[in-house]
Structure formats: C-alpha cells, structure tokens
C-alpha cells in the first residue's frame, strides 16, 4: 500500500515539470539567450558605417571605455535627476494621502472616487500622454495662451527649450502617472497595521503627527523599501515620455537624454557593440536591485511562505 502511494507521488512530479516548462522555455528563448548574446556583443566592435558592416572584432573593454567618453555618465545623471523630480513629491504625497485615507478621525468621504481618479493616469499610454503634454505646453499651446490671457505671463514661456522646463515636465508626468499607484500600495500597508496600535496611541493622547512618525512610518518600512526599489527600476527604464516629448533628441542640449534613449539610439543605428555595453551596465544595476526586491519580499512574506510549506508538505 505504502509502496504504491510512493510510486504515484513520483509519477505526479513530472506534471510539475510539464506545467512550468512553457514559462522556462519562453524565458530561455526570449530573455536568457538574448541576454547572453547582448553581453557577448558588448566585447566586440560591431557597427554599421553607411552600408558597410564593421566587425564583429573582439575589442575587450573598449566599448565600455567609449561609453564614458560618449556621455554615458551625463545620461545616467539626467535619468537620476528626472527620476528624483518625479519620485520625491510622489513619495511625500503618497505617504500623506495614505495616512489621511486610513485616519479614522478624518472620515474622508468619497475615498473610492479619489482612489479611482488618482490611479487613472497610471493606465494612460505614456507616449500619448507625452504627446499630449507636448501639444499643451508648446510655445503657442493652450497652457501658454491661458497664462498670457490671464495676464500671468507677457510672452510665451518656452517650456521645451529650457533645461529645467523640460526636465520638470518629464518629472511632473512621472509623478502624475505613479503617485496613485504608490498611494494605493501604501494604504494597503497601513491598513495591515494592527488597529489596536492606533487606538492605544489615541488613548495616550498622541498627535496625528506623532502617530504618523512613531507608528505608521516604522510599521510600513518594508513596503516603503519595496516602493523605493521598484521605482528605481522604473526610473532606469524611463524612455517613452522623454523620447516623445523631445522627439528622441533629449533636447535641449541632451539634458533630458535618458539611458534607455541612449541605448535606443545605438540599437537604431545598429551599433551593437556600444548598445551591448550600455545594456550590460543596466543589467548589473538592475540585478542588484532585483536581489534587494527578492530579500524585501521574502522578509515581508515570511508568514505566507510558512503556509506554503505546510500545504506543500500535505500535497
């Protein structure tokens, strides 16, 4: 009897492999092999000059050296600056909103309505959103004409010709697209805190400010870390908005050129060596961030993992 059961168990195991096979095959074909090839090309001189294809010739780390000379650090700086312009207000506003929405003393009405509204920009096509901003903030666009007719400005403010105007618009769009998402995540985290803590704080006469800094903030730290890291990965991928807003130029004077725009330019001009080197650096940074996400999720999910183990044993 016991033996029979064991044989059955073994025969079930193969279904596990069947079921997860498509995922791993697709990942191998569409991600892993391409990643290997990307890394491989980063060590070769391989580009198109006119109609002629140069290479592939092995050049060691020359591509990486050329990266630094062709403005890689500047573009990395641009990416970080524009990410910060969007992220700092995003995390502040989201924390405040999450605290308000979950504060029983405030009794905000229409919470569902506000949640629906603030999350909406997240679903908007980023390229269409950027095109819309381009039209609205152009020199003769509706924003300028409104400001002039209200007497606030005397002549159009050329948003897209000034460094901080363009970076500010990119940051504003990133803020609008992501603060709703962050608010909802943080709210879920705050609502997961034991309500007895808040009740005790109220009884002890804590001010809302004290409650926020002494209870809410420390309790939701794992989610805050998660939001920070995923937002950093999102920031590294910044592409659609500045690409469309500046028509791939990163104008003015390449001050809004992001790393992925730089990668895109090399891919477009078929300079595979340089594109490979950019990709590899991005991959290394993302891999570190992925590891951090892995550890925060595991620390956070301690309980559900225990549950999983129990169930798995039963199966």
């Amino acid at each position, binding site marked *: 009897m016991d033996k029979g059961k064991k044989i059955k168990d073994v025969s*079930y*195991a193969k*279904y*596990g492999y*069947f079921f*997860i096979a*498509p*995922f791993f095959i*697709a*990942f191998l074909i*569409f*991600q*892993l*092999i*391409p*990643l290997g*090839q990307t890394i491989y*090309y980063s060590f070769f001189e391989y580009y198109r000059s006119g109609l002629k294809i140069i290479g592939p010739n092995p050049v060691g780390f020359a591509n990486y050296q050329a990266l630094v000379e062709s403005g890689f650090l500047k573009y990395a700086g641009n990416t970080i600056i524009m990410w910060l312009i969007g992220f700092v207000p995003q995390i502040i506003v989201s924390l405040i*909103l999450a605290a*308000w929405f979950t504060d029983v*003393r405030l009794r*905000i009405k229409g919470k569902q309505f*506000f949640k*629906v509204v603030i999350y*909406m920009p997240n*679903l*908007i*096509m980023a*390229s*269409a959103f950027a*095109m*819309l*901003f381009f039209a609205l903030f152009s020199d003769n666009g*509706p924003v300028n004409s*409104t400001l002039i*007719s209200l007497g606030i400005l005397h002549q159009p403010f050329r948003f897209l010709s000034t460094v901080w105007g363009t970076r500010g618009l990119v940051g504003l769009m990133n803020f609008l697209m992501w*603060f709703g*998402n962050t608010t*909802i*995540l943080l709210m*879920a985290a705050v609502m997961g805190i034991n309500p007895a803590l808040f009740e005790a704080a109220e009884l002890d006469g804590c001010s809302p400010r004290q409650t926020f800094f002494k209870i809410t903030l420390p309790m939701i730290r794992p989610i805050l870390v998660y939001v920070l*890291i*995923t937002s950093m990965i999102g920031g590294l*991928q910044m592409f659609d908005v500045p*690409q*469309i807003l500046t028509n*791939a130029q990163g104008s003015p004077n390449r001050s809004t050129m992001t790393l*992925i725009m730089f990668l895109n330019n090399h*891919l477009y001009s078929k300079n*595979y060596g340089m*594109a*490979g080197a950019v*990709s590899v650096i991005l991959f290394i940074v993302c891999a570190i961030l992925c590891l951090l996400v*892995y550890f925060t999720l595991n620390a956070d999910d301690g309980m*559900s993992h225990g*549950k*999983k183990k129990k*169930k798995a044993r*039963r*199966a």
Partner: protein
Amino acid sequence: MEKKPSHVRTVIAYIVLIILTFLCLFFFYILIINASRHHSEIQKGFSFLPGTAFVRNLKNVLKDANIPVVSGIKNSLIVSSLSAAIATYFSALTAYGLYAYNFKLKKPAFIFIMLILVMPTQVSALGFINLITKMKMLNTLYPLFLPSIAAPAVFYFMYSYMQSSLPIELVEAARIDGCGEFRTFNRIVLPIMKPAMAVQAIFAFVSSWNNFFIPALVISDNSKKTLPILIASLRSADFLKFDMGKVYMLITIAIVPIIIVYIALSKYIVAGVALGGVKE
C-alpha cells in the same frame, strides 16, 4: 475643543485631494475638448466648451493615408488581447505547477522566478532583436506577444492567489475521482482563479497596449504598426503643419478606450493594485 484640529485637518485634506483630482483630470479634459474642435479654433486659444468638429476630426484621422490608424487599432487590439490571454493562462499554469506538485527543482525554479521578478526586458533588447531577425519574425506581431508566456509578475500574483484561495484538497479530490492532471487544471483550477486572472488580464492588456520600446524596434512596416508607434511618428513629422484637431483625436483614440474600460472595472482594478504590489 478636541474636535477642532481634526476639523481643520479634514478641510486641508479635501483641498489637497481636490487639487490632485484637478491635476489628474484637467489634461484629459482639455484633450477631449480639443479633439472636438476645429484646427483654427484650437489655434485661437483655450476653451472650456467642446467644439463641433468631433466627427470631422475622427473622419480625418481615420482616412489619413500617412497614419494608418485603423490598422493601428487592429494591431494594438490583436497584440494586447493575445498578450493578456497568454500571460494569464501560462502564469496560472506555471503557478499551479509550482503550487500543487513536489519535484526536485521546485524550489530553485521558484527562487529563480522571484529573482527575475522585476528585471526589465530592455536590458536584453539587443539580443532579442537579433534573435527574432534570425527567426524571420522581424516586422511581424509575434515577438510582441509570445514573450508574455514568461511573465514573472503575473506568475507571482497567481501564486499568491492560489495560496489563499485554492485548497490542495480540491485537487486531491479530483484525482480520486479519476480526473487527469491537465483536465483538473483547466476544469477545476482555472474557474477558481477567474478573479485573479481577470485582474491580471486587464493589467497585461493595458501594459501591452501602451508598450512602445520593443514594438518600435521590431516593427517598421506601416501596416503592422501599433498605436504608440503611430503617435511617435506623428511627433517626428513636421508638427506645425499638422491639423491639431487630428493630433488631439489620435491621442484620444489611444487613451479613451482604456479610460472607459478602467472606469467600468475600477473597483476590481484598484483592489488588484492593493493586492498585487508588483508591477513592471
């Protein structure tokens, strides 16, 4: 005395919320207003009231030979629907494989997927484009939806959902009744997973609908272009010569269907965001 500060805070909270609501909605309001106005009206300045040229702008966009909008909508719909269907089905399948079975590589497989959970696809774009060129899939729609078979974030959501809503006893009962493993998955597990699949299908559809980076590298043929690529080509054309009514109309076509679906399903979507915690 105690209540007063709370009162002031409530007022401040409402003011901030109203400002943010205004910021979120105002741009889309102008978009829809301008999509309904004539080019010359738009040039004159801003208006709070819609114009009368909505149908005219729509017709102009749809018949413009330089921007194939109709095929763009069709391509976007095909790619997004297939991505959503593939991502949800295969993620549920993978999650079930790791949830319901015991095998040697179970733990490494799970750890591997968790490690690549938020890895951006852009880092391997170079190899990806090379590979699909060799596979003769350049300028086809296949590379835009086939990679969705491996969607780690969707997998993670499905796996978490199974932990909370799929009792393993149910699977065992099906086995005792002589139900095959694949049949069990399709007939018993999938119906239970329906709520999770619906939420993830929406997210997968939207992210594919909005996707720009990879499609722009894969597609160069006009008849295969998806909507984001068409918008980009509009931007690179000489903007000043354009009929602005048409520009706003094309943006409207790209955005408004998603907004309508979102408003209809907002309850589930917002709940899904709070649950998932993982977005690409």
